């Protein structure tokens, strides 16, 4: 027990998963620390859901290991510390919200009370409703309640907000922050970049079964050129723009320049020196979205 207390919540080492001749994951490694919120970001089919399945012990790795607090995820001692929300779960339609949560909570030694889980998920008015009568959004809230009723230390969320409207998504992010404040480790997959930016301490970008970036949202943004400079100029060529200090990438369409630069100030200073016809100048931090597109298209 003492040993497993020292072990990090999640350790993934050289994880490889092949489905027949298809490499779903080709060797990924990372650790998640206590209280850390990690977003796995990647296009569809990148290997996010496969990673989650392996971390949960729902599938066996072709090679490599997953450890939850130093143990195999399939062990009961690991399971009672894990909370899980999967895509399109479905649930027995003829059980009531309160009944299914009571049932679940019986199996977790540190469970919070069912009342608390119901309140936490905002299902107080639906506590006595049959699951089959819940709306899509309410079902999603129920799955969230099922993920937290056991008071888990590490929470896995596979595309948790995919069916939610904007308001519900923001409320969900608030809940993530509350869980983080309780020092729970959270790993979620998403293809909403905005979501990763809003709640994650760390983003792991995964593409074609490989980790292609791993860092804080701002570090990842910096990686791709940090700042974005947009302007119009009639007296500047694309090649000249490319030679401006700090510039990593230039796109030029219909008289409008789009530069990525590591640091904006020297770029802009040089720009004023070279061009006297400058209009519509805009300097913005590159979004995670741009970083993501840049990373996954190379």
């Amino acid at each position, binding site marked *: 027990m003492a040993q497993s207390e020292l072990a990090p919540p999640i350790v993934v080492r050289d994880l490889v998963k092949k489905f027949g001749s298809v490499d779903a994951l080709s060797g990924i490694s990372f650790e998640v620390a206590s209280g850390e919120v990690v977003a796995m970001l990647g296009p569809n089919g990148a290997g996010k859901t496969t990673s989650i399945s392996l971390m949960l012990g*729902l*599938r066996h790795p072709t090679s490599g290991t997953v450890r939850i607090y130093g143990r195999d995820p399939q062990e009961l001692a690991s399971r009672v510390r894990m909370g899980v929300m999967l895509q399109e779960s479905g649930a027995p339609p003829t059980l009531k919200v309160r009944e299914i949560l009571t049932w679940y909570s019986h199996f977790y030694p540190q469970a919070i009370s069912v009342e608390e889980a119901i309140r936490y998920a905002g299902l107080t008015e639906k506590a006595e409703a049959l699951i089959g009568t819940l709306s899509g959004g309410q079902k999603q809230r129920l799955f969230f309640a099922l993920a937290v009723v056991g008071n888990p230390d590490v929470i896995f969320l596979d595309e948790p907000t995919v069916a939610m409207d904007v308001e519900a998504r923001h*409320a969900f992010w*608030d*809940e993530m922050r509350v869980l983080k404040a309780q020092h729970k480790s959270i790993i979620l997959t998403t293809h909403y970049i905005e979501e990763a930016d809003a709640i994650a301490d760390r983003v792991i970008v995964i593409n074609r079964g490989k980790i292609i970036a791993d860092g804080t949202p701002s570090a990842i943004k910096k990686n791709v050129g940090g700042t974005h400079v947009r302007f119009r100029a009639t007296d500047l060529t694309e090649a000249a723009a490319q030679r401006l200090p700090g510039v990593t990438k230039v796109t030029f369409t219909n008289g409008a320049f789009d530069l990525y630069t590591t640091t904006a100030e020297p770029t802009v200073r040089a720009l004023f020196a070279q061009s006297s016809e400058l209009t519509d100048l805009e300097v913005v931090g590159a979004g995670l979205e741009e970083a993501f597109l840049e990373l996954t298209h190379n």
Partner: protein
Amino acid sequence: MVTETTTASATRTNSPSAQLGYTIYAEVIRTLRIPALLIPSLIFPSLFFILFGIPNKQYNIASANAATFLMVSYGCYAAMSTSFLSFGIGTASERGMGWNRLLRASPINPLYLFFAKLVSIVTVILLSVLLLYVVSILLGKVTLPLDQWFGVTGMLLVGVIPFVALGLVLGYSAGPNSAPAIGNLIFIPLSFFSGILIPVQFLPDFARGFAKYTPSYHVGQLAWHVIGAGDSTSLFVHLLWVAGYTLVFVWLALIAYRREERRTFG
């Protein structure tokens, strides 16, 4: 919606018996709330008795009163159809649902869940058989000594075992959409050509020879023996047949289960 005060309640370890108990409770109420399962299970055996048992109550079948004989037959039908079809269709449809994946990632013991399903099916069967007995006594004037009521019921429950196993074969082989059709395609001929829905004596010759090799015939014989209407073969031989079929079905179910495991969780 978000409460900052969420804290863990004191660690309270639920005993395995409390875990199993609530699992059974949840599974039984869940099942009893499905009208599509409950209504046919409850109604058909009694309906068959009203249609065929009552009009024939002045005749004898296999040296027993025909109404009594047919009541036992339809009791077998209740036990076999409910266990085979609900386990088969239930397993196949749950297999297609992400719910199964969520359960597997949880600390819920799958053996508890299986046992709870068994208890809920037996509950439905007992309700169905109880209704059949009440209808038989009140409308069919069926009388049996008390020990025979219990004996027949006990044999019906023995008959549940091979049909649950056969249900699992179906559940792990058929898809969620095809399982109901395939299940009925297997079950309806099986209950017709084994003497359960129509007594063996009234079957055409070819079917009479075939009947003696079906699992349902031997389950029927176990129950008919209790009321003194069995065939000349001993009860022990019929038990061996039922046990043999159970082993074969369990073996097939394991093969299908393992193949499914490799596909979904490999």
